[in-house]
C-alpha cells in the first residue's frame, strides 16, 4: 500500500505542476473569451467595484421601462447619478438576479484577495442592493433560470482561473435543471401550509386569514371559477399573483440567509450597505383579491424584512409604500405579470429616496433633473396597453 501511495503522490505532484502551467496559459489566452462567453457581467462587476463610489446591484427593476411609451429610459442608477454628480455611481444589473448571486458578486470586491481573505476598505464605497420581496418566494427560488445564473456566478471569484474553468466543466454549481426546479416548486405549492395562523416573529402579532391551506388549493379554486364575467386575463393574473406572493418569510428562507450574509461580508469589508425595498404592485394585488387575502402576505413579508434589517443594523431605504407606486397602476410597465418594472416616475422617485438616505444629514432639496438624450420628459405618461388591461379588470367586481 505504501508503494502505491508513493506512486500516486508522484503522479499527483506532476499533475499539479501541469495544472499550474495550464493555469498560466489559460489565464493568458482563453480566460477573457470564456468570461465573455459564460459570464457577461463579470467584467462589469470588476469595473464597478474598482471605479464606483456607489455601486448599485440590481435586477431588471433597475433598468426596465416601457419601450413604447416611456420617453425617459434612464435606469434608477442613472437617475441616482444625475442627482449625485459629485460621486461616481456604477451599476451592475442582471435580469432575475437575487441576493444569493449578489452575495457572490461581492467576492470580486478589490478588498477580498482570496475567498477567505477580507481586508477593510479604505475608500468608503457604498453598496446599494435592491430587495424585491417576490424574489424570496418559491416561484423565484425554484426558478428554471437558476442553473444558468449559478453558472455565470462561478466566475465571481478570485480563485485560480483554470480552477473556475474546471468547475464549469464539472458543473460545480447548483445545476439542478428546470424540470427538477419545477418539481420542487409544485411540491412547495402543494405542501406548504399558508392558511390562517398567528405569526409573532416580526415583533408584533400578525394573523394571516385565508381559507386556502396551500397555494395549490388556492390556484385550483381560481381555475375552477366558472363565472362567465371573469375575463381570462384576470384569472391568469390572479393565478400568477398567488404563485408569486403567497408565501410567508422566516429565518430559514434562503434569500433571507443570503441577505444576512451580505450584511456580514460588507461589515467585514467596512463597506456602507444600503438595502432598498422595492415597491410591489399592490394595486393589482388589491384589485384582484379585494384588499384582503393576498395583500396580507405582502405586508407580512415586508414587515418581516424590515424587522430583520433593523436587527442587523443595516441602512434601509423603504419604498414599499412609495406614493408614486400607489397612485396609478399603469406606472407598472407589466400589466400581464407581477413584475417590479416601473415607469420613469417611479424609477425617479426611487432614486430620489436613495439620495436622501445616502446624503443623510447633508441632504438637500433636489433639483429636478432632465436627461438630455431623450425626448421631452413626460412624467404623467399614459400607458395605453396597461390602461386597456386595467379596463378589463374593471369589468369584474371582485375576483374572490
Amino acid at each position, binding site marked *: 500500500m505504501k508503494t502505491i501511495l508513493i*506512486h500516486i503522490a508522484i503522479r499527483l505532484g506532476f499533475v499539479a505542476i501541469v495544472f499550474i502551467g495550464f493555469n498560466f496559459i489559460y489565464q493568458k489566452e482563453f480566460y477573457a473569451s470564456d468570461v465573455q462567453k459564460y459570464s457577461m457581467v463579470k467584467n462589469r462587476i470588476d469595473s464597478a467595484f474598482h471605479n464606483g463610489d456607489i455601486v448599485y446591484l440590481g435586477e431588471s427593476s433597475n433598468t426596465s421601462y416601457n419601450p413604447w411609451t416611456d420617453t425617459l429610459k434612464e435606469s434608477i442608477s442613472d437617475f441616482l447619478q444625475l442627482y449625485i454628480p459629485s460621486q461616481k455611481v456604477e451599476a451592475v444589473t442582471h435580469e432575475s438576479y437575487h441576493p444569493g448571486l449578489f452575495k457572490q458578486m461581492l467576492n470580486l470586491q478589490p478588498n477580498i484577495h482570496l475567498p477567505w481573505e477580507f481586508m477593510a476598505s479604505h475608500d468608503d464605497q457604498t453598496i446599494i442592493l435592491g430587495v424585491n420581496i417576490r424574489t424570496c418566494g418559491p416561484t423565484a427560488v425554484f426558478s428554471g433560470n437558476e442553473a444558468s445564473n449559478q453558472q455565470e456566478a462561478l466566475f465571481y471569484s478570485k480563485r485560480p482561473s*483554470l480552477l473556475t474553468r*474546471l468547475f464549469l466543466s464539472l458543473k460545480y454549481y447548483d445545476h439542478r435543471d428546470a424540470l427538477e426546479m419545477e418539481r420542487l416548486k409544485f411540491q412547495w405549492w402543494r405542501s406548504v401550509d399558508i392558511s390562517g395562523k398567528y405569526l409573532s416573529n416580526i415583533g408584533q402579532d400578525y394573523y394571516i386569514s385565508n381559507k386556502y391551506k396551500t397555494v395549490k388549493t388556492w390556484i385550483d379554486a381560481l381555475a375552477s371559477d366558472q363565472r362567465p364575467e371573469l375575463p381570462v386575463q384576470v384569472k391568469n393574473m390572479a393565478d400568477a399573483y398567488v404563485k408569486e406572493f403567497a408565501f410567508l418569510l422566516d429565518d430559514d428562507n434562503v434569500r433571507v440567509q443570503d441577505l444576512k450574509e451580505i450584511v456580514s461580508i460588507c461589515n467585514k469589508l467596512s463597506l456602507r450597505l444600503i438595502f432598498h425595498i422595492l415597491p410591489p404592485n399592490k394595486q393589482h394585488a388589491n384589485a384582484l383579491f379585494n384588499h384582503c387575502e393576498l395583500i396580507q402576505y405582502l405586508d407580512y413579508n415586508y414587515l418581516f424584512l424590515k424587522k430583520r434589517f433593523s436587527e442587523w443594523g443595516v441602512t434601509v431605504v423603504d419604498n414599499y409604500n412609495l406614493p408614486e407606486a400607489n397612485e396609478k397602476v399603469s406606472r407598472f410597465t407589466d400589466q400581464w405579470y407581477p413584475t417590479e418594472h416601473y415607469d420613469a416616475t417611479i424609477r425617479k422617485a426611487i432614486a430620489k429616496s436613495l439620495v436622501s438616505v445616502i446624503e443623510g444629514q447633508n441632504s438637500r432639496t433636489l433639483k429636478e433633473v432632465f436627461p438630455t438624450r431623450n425626448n421631452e420628459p413626460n412624467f404623467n405618461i399614459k400607458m395605453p396597453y396597461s390602461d386597456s388591461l386595467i379596463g378589463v379588470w374593471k369589468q369584474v367586481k371582485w375576483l374572490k
Partner: protein
Amino acid sequence: MLFNSVEFWFFLPIVWLVYFVMPFKIRWVWLLIASYYFYSYWKLEFAGLMLFTSFLDWFAAKQLHKSEIKWKRLTWLWLAILSDIGMLFLFKYFNFALGDSNLAKSMYQSQWTAWIIELGKYTIPAGISFYTFQSISYVVDVYRGDETPEKSLPKFLLYVSFFPQLVAGPIERFGRLHSQLFAQYSPRWEDVRNGLRLLIFGLFLKVAIADNLAGVVDDFYANPSKYNLLSTWVATFLFTFQVYLDFFGYSLLAQGAALLFGIHLMDNFNKPFLAKSIPEFWHRWHISLSTWFRDYVFIPVGGNKNGPVVLAFAVMLVFFTSGLWHGANITMIYFGLSQGFLYLFDRFIFKNIQIQSVVWERFKQIKTGLFFMITLVFFRSGTIEQAKLVYKQMLGSNLGIENIHVGLLIWLFLIVGVVLDNNIMKERADSWLGKLPFIARWSLYVFFIGSIAMFGGAVNHPFVYFQF
C-alpha cells in the same frame, strides 16, 4: 453523485483509502455504506426505494430456492419480477401511461397521490432501470439453478448498489460481481494504474468531447427548422457520437473506479462503428444490456432455434422492450422498433449478399453506422413531430437557412476520440496506453487533462444514460 462532478473526485479517493485501511472482513460493509451514500447524495428517498426492491428480490430468491414445489417457486419468481417491473412502471412509465387522463388529474388533486404524479412527471430515480434489471437477473439465475442465493441481505445489497456501476451499468451478473466483491484482495499498483488510466480517458470522452457535442446538438434541436440540409446531417452525425462517447466514457469511468478496488467490470462497448451489420452492432454496443435481453427475453421466448417467425417475434419483442427501457416516450418505442426492423433486414436479406471485396466490407460498416445514426433521430427527438421534421430536413424537403456552428476544437476532440477508439486501440484504453512509450503516454495524459480543464463542455448535461 455523478462521475463528472467535483464531489465524486473527493469521494472516490476517500472511499478507496478507507477501504484498504480497514480489515479485510469489514471492507465490504464500508463499500456498502459508501454506495448508499453515493446514491442518496442525489436523493435520499430513492435510496429507500432501492433498499426496498433489493430486499424483495433477496427474500423471493431465498424462498424460491428453499422450495421444491414448482408452482411455489414460480410464484416467488414472478412476485419478484412483477414487483421490480411494478416499481419501474410506477416511477418511470406511470405518468407516460396516464398522460392527461382523468385518473392522472384526480391523483394530482389528492394530497396522498399527488407526489406520484410529480415524481413521474419530473424525476426518475437515477439508474432505476439498471439496478432493477441487475436484480431481476439474480432472481432468474437463482430460479434456473445457475446461482445459489446470497444468505446475507447486506451482502446482496452491495451487489445491487456497488457504486461504480449503480446508476448506468454495466449490468453485471451476480456470479461475476459477487465473487469479486468478497474475494480476498490486496491492492495492486497495476490495478490502480490501469484504473486511473480508464478514469482519465473516460472523463476526457465525456467532458471534453460528449459535453461539447451536446451544446451543438442542443442548439440544433431547440429549433431544427431553421437549419439547412447539411446542418441537419451534421447534427445527426454529432449526436451519434455524443451518445456513444458519453456512454462509452461513463462505462470507462465505471470500470476505472471499480478497478481501484480490484474489481473488473465487463466491457460495455467494443468499437461498435466497426460492426458490419445491425445484429453485430448490438453485440458491440451496450453489451451488458444486449446480453441481458438475450438471456432473459430473447432465448426464453424462442430465440433463433424455432424458425424465422419466432425469431422475428423475439427480435421485435426485444427491441420494443429495449426501446421502452430507454425512456418513457413514444419516440423511444419508435427507436426500438426501427432497430428491430433493421436487425431483421440485415439478418434475412442483407446477410445473403456475399461479395468478397474490401470495399464491400467497408460499405457494410458505413451502412450499419448510417442506419444506426438515422434511427437515433427518434432517440433524441422529444416528440414524433420533431423527429418527422428532422427526417424531412434530412431529405431536403424543408430547407432552413442557418448553418450549424461547430467549433474547430470540437472537431479536433471528436477526431482524436474516434481515432483513438476505433483505429489505434485494439485493446481497452488502459492496456493500450500502458504499451506506449513514457513520453507519448504522458503527453496524452497532459492533453487529456488540459482538454478537460480548459475546454470541457459547459452545457449542463448529466450522462445520457443516467436518466434511464
